[in-house]
Every structure is written in structure tokens, then in C-alpha cells.
């Protein structure tokens, strides 16, 4: 567990590392999913091609979309793209940079799936078994079959148990041929992808380095600004809730005291912190009323300047103060009618 924690901390150290980590995990997951997947060629003339190519192409598309979904920055990109201009200009280069870096990371898992599929060979064997060149690979002595019958026989090549065309073309020969083509395609695909990645990475410093540095800085800035704004709002919400609840308890205590027609209990000056925290509610009945009221009638989302100061003594004894003398907690210093 310690090892995982260390690796996790390293990956979390900055945003890019974290995204690279997710990207690597998705690539491994993609390879693992392929090995777990139970490939079952239908061995029927019309269905083989659809099944084989479907397994080759549909999961990569899903993995690509999943790569975008798992990327936190997608919502940030969408927000930045759609926000009204306001007082801050929009820079298209920053949006392009963000989109490109997300797309590059999302491409890795699909590329891994396609490579593993091609190198394994089952999909291509299933999809193209009816296109095997029987003239060159088959037994020349065998009399020709009608087209439909030939296709039916060839379609069963991937399913060794039911293959009945051994005289027409040997099963192993056909499978070896198809697998060879598939693996050649696979390695060519891998080479093409690595060449593309290399070109993309190495041409950038040669041409657009200054623009790149600018886009990278501002895209990090937008990300950090959003996070800090969320943190500030969370802090504000915390203070708001704290004050709102304090005012609720005080209001409760005052109302009940007024209903019982005696002045609100005042805490002696040396009562200490615990008494202050009781917020004026000191018996079971009052507490029950407070809880019931909290459920039935939550206070409005509106903080008043404090009518009662906190429990350490009064400014004006025996009279409800109209204007608070000195707010002692984090409350608004003015009353807004906006």
C-alpha cells in the first residue's frame, strides 16, 4: 500500500502528471480488456466482416470518448469556450492547446486496443477469411465450387471444429496467411503512430515555441483560477453557514425567552467557553423546540447584523439593542436591501 501511495503522490504532484497517469492506466485497462474479452467469430458469410471490423473499431471509439469523460479539463474547456467575453478577452490559441492536449491523451487507449487487436490477429482472420486467395494457397486439384458455397466454406476458417473445407484449402495455411497479414498491418500501424507522435512532439519547438509557452501558461492559469475560485466559494459557504446557524440558535433562544415573558438568560461574565457555545439554549424543552423548528422552518439565506452579541455580556442590559454596538463575529457590517 505504501508503494501505491508513493506512486499516487508522485502522479498527483502536478496536473499533467496526473493526466499522464490516467492515460497510462487506461492503456493498460484497454490491453487487459482485450485479453479478457472472449472473441467468438460467427463463422457465417454475411456476419464475419461486420463482427470482425466491429470489434476492431467500436471499442476504440468508446475508449476515446471515455478518455474525454475521465479528463477533468473537459468541463473547463467547454466553460472557457462558451463564456461570454465580458471584460476578459478570449484567446483561441489557448482553447486549441487545451483541446489538442486532451485529444492526444485520449488517443492512447484506442491506439493500444487497435494495435493489440491487429497483433493478435483474431479480428482480421474473422473479418477477411472469405477473401483468402484460394487459387494460390489452396489445393489446385480440387474442383471449383460455386461462389456461394465457396464463401460458406471459407467463412468457417476461424472455427476449426466445424471447418469442412480441408480439401479446398488447409485450415492452418489460411489462418497463418491471415494472421501474417494482420500482424504486418499491426506493426505498420504501431510504426505509423509512433512516427506521428514523434513528429508532433519534435516539430513544435522548431516552429511555435513562443506561442506554445503562452498557451501553456494561460491554460494552467485558467485551471488554477477555477480551483481557487471553488475553494474561496467553499470557504465563504462555510462562514455563511456558521453565521446563519448561530443566528438561528440565538433567534430561537430569544423567541422562547420572549414567549416565557422573562428576559433572556444572561451568562455571567466568567462563565467560560462552554457556556458561550451553548448559544443560550440550556434546557431540554428549548433544544427540542430548536430541532423541530430547524426541520419545519429553516431560516432564510440572509444574515442579519447581530441583534444579540455573543454570550459574554451585554452592551445594554435589559433592553433589546436596536443597533448592534460592535459585531463580534464574522457578520456583515451593513444591511443590504439589494
Amino acid at each position, binding site marked *: 500500500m*505504501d*508503494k501505491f501511495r*508513493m506512486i499516487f503522490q*508522485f502522479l498527483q504532484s*502536478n496536473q499533467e502528471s496526473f493526466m499522464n497517469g490516467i492515460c497510462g492506466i487506461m492503456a493498460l485497462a484497454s490491453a487487459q480488456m482485450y485479453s479478457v474479452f472472449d472473441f467468438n467469430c460467427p463463422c457465417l458469410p454475411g456476419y464475419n466482416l461486420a463482427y470482425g471490423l466491429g470489434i476492431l473499431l467500436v471499442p476504440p471509439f468508446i475508449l476515446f470518448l471515455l478518455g474525454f469523460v475521465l479528463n477533468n479539463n473537459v468541463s473547463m474547456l467547454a466553460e472557457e469556450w462558451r*463564456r*461570454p467575453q*465580458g*471584460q*476578459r478577452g478570449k484567446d483561441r490559441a489557448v482553447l486549441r492547446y487545451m483541446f489538442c492536449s486532451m485529444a492526444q491523451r485520449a488517443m492512447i487507449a484506442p491506439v493500444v486496443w487497435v494495435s493489440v487487436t491487429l*497483433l493478435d*490477429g483474431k479480428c482480421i482472420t474473422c473479418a477477411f477469411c472469405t477473401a483468402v486467395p484460394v487459387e494460390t494457397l489452396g489445393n489446385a486439384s480440387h474442383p471449383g465450387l460455386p461462389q456461394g458455397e465457396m464463401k460458406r466454406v471459407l467463412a468457417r476458417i476461424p472455427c476449426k471444429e466445424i471447418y469442412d473445407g480441408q480439401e479446398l484449402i*488447409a485450415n*492452418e*495455411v489460411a489462418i*497463418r*496467411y491471415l*494472421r*501474417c497479414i494482420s*500482424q*504486418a498491418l499491426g*506493426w*505498420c500501424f*504501431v*510504426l505509423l503512430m*509512433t*512516427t506521428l507522435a*514523434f513528429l508532433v*512532439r*519534435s516539430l513544435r*519547438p*522548431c516552429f511555435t*515555441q513562443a506561442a506554445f509557452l503562452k498557451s501553456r*501558461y494561460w491554460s*494552467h*492559469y485558467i485551471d*488554477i*483560477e477555477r480551483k*481557487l*475560485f471553488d475553494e*474561496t466559494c467553499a*470557504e*465563504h459557504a*462555510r*462562514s*455563511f453557514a456558521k*453565521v446563519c446557524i448561530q443566528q438561528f440558535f440565538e433567534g430561537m433562544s430569544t423567541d422562547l425567552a420572549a414567549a416565557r415573558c422573562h428576559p433572556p438568560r444572561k451568562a455571567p461574565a466568567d462563565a467560560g467557553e462552554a457556556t458561550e457555545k451553548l448559544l443560550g439554549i440550556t434546557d431540554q424543552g428549548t433544544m427540542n423546540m430548536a430541532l423541530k423548528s430547524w426541520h419545519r422552518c429553516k431560516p432564510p439565506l*440572509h444574515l442579519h*447584523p447581530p441583534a444579540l452579541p455573543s454570550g459574554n455580556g451585554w452592551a445594554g442590559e435589559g433592553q433589546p439593542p436596536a443597533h*448592534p454596538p*460592535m*459585531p463580534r463575529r*464574522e*457578520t*456583515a*457590517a*451593513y*444591511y*443590504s436591501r*439589494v
Partner: protein
Amino acid sequence: MDRFRMIFQYFQSNSESVMNGICGLLALASVKIYTCFDFSCPCLPQYNMAYGLGIMLVPPIALFLCGLILNRQSLVMLEEWRRPQGCRKKDLAVIRYMCSSIMQRAMVAPVVWIIVTLLDGKCLICAFSGSVDPEKFVGFANASPVQVQQLLAKVPCKDDELMRNNTSRKAVSRYLRCWSQALGWSILLILIVAAFLARWLRPCFNQATLLQARHWSNYIDIEQKIFEETCCEHSRLFAHKCILHFFKSMQQEIKLHSFSLPREGEGTEGEEDLLRGITGQDQVNKLLKMWYYEKPPLDVSQVTQR
């Protein structure tokens, strides 16, 4: 776990170590990919050579490019090479040093692949079974040339019906594997001797230049890392100030629009006012709406000049 942590920290300690670590991982990955890869020779006269040599040579190219891509220093080197001169001179010796160290590290995984391939032997057997002299082997001597080509092409496939009980197949296979392994070990020996000589003889030539080039290449690398970290820190502070400024301006706007009581509690101005004057649901909603519709300009000069 302690040992693992120490190893991890050692590799992180400087960028050369990180590169060496990546290089080692890529070499291990190359061996793993080869063992997982299901080699299946087509056993057809025209295809064998292409397949065998293709499997031996195409993955190394992809591994080499991967080695260049994963190496952070290659980007640093390219940037240093292409940057305008400006106020800082460019030293070609440093760029050459960086280039050679990047190439050396990137070559390790492809070389490992080729050597593993040769020592295993399947690729060479597949590629060159058709080029063997049939006169040397009893089973193939008495057949027409076309037939001989067909039979020789099927040598790599043990399970083929023609080859299953053919003793000459094993002879050809052993012969080719012997050549393949000899080639593999020779290449390994040559490379190790070359590496040994290079390391031993290097101090005899230009040691001072080498030390300078190494120092400055490390410097360029570290400088770039620190620049990126400083930019990150700066953007964090910038964002912090920008948001505080935004909250303050919202507070002022609310004050302007309200019929407010005289501002009380002047003494509390020194305290941290976390609520920042925003104390109602509609005020919060307004703030959030303003944040979306009218983000503040990227200019904190008034804040910092106070």
C-alpha cells in the same frame, strides 16, 4: 517498501537518473512485448522473408522513436537548438553532447529487441529457410526446384502436415538457429566491447570539454524545470489576487446599491472578513452569475500597487 522508496527517490534525484530509469523500463518492456507476441511464420515462399525481417526490424524502429518521445531531454535539446540567439550564445558542443546522450539511451531498447530476436532464432528461421542450400539436407535433395522452395518455406511450421514427420526439417531448423544465435552473441559481444572502450578511452580525449558540456546540459535542463515551476507558482498567485479583487469589487458594488446603515464595526476591519460582505442568497447568486458572464480582466496592477 523502504528499499523501493529509496530506489524511487534515487531515480528522481536528477534528470539523468530519470532518463536511465525510463531507458531500463523500455528495455524490459521490449523483452516483455517479444515474449507476449505470438510469432507465426506464414510458411509461404514469398512472404517468409518479408515477415521474418519485418518482425526483426520494424519494432526496433518504433522502440527507438518511443525512446526519443519519452525522453524529456530531447525536447530541451531541440528548444536549445532552435532558439534565437538573443543575449545568450549557443554552444554547439553542449547540443552535440545532449544529442549523443539521447541517442545512446534511445538505442538500448531496439538493440535489446534485435538481440533477443536473434538469440531466440524464430525470425531468422522464418526469413531464411527458403534460402538454404537444399543439397546439404537429405530430405530436400530429390525434389523439383519449385517443390523444394515450397517445402523449405514450410520448415518454420512444425505442425504443418507435410512437415510433421520430416527429419530434415529439424536439421534445417537447427542449422538456421545456430547461425542466428551465433550472430546474436557476436553482436552482443561487439556492442559490449565498444561500450567498454568508449567509457575507458573517453577521459583520454577532451575531458575538460566533456565536463563543461555535461555541466551546461544539466544546467539547461534544470533551468527549464525551474522556469516551469516558477510560472506555475506565479499563475497561482495571480489567480489568488484576481479572485480577491473580484470579491472586493462585488462587495463595493453591493455597498453602492444598498441603503446601508452607517458601517459599524470599524474596529473589525483589521480582522479577516471571510464573508467579504456577501451575506444573502441573492448576493451570492449575483456573484456567481457575474463570475460566469463577466470574468474580471487579467489585470491585478491596482491590487499590487496598493
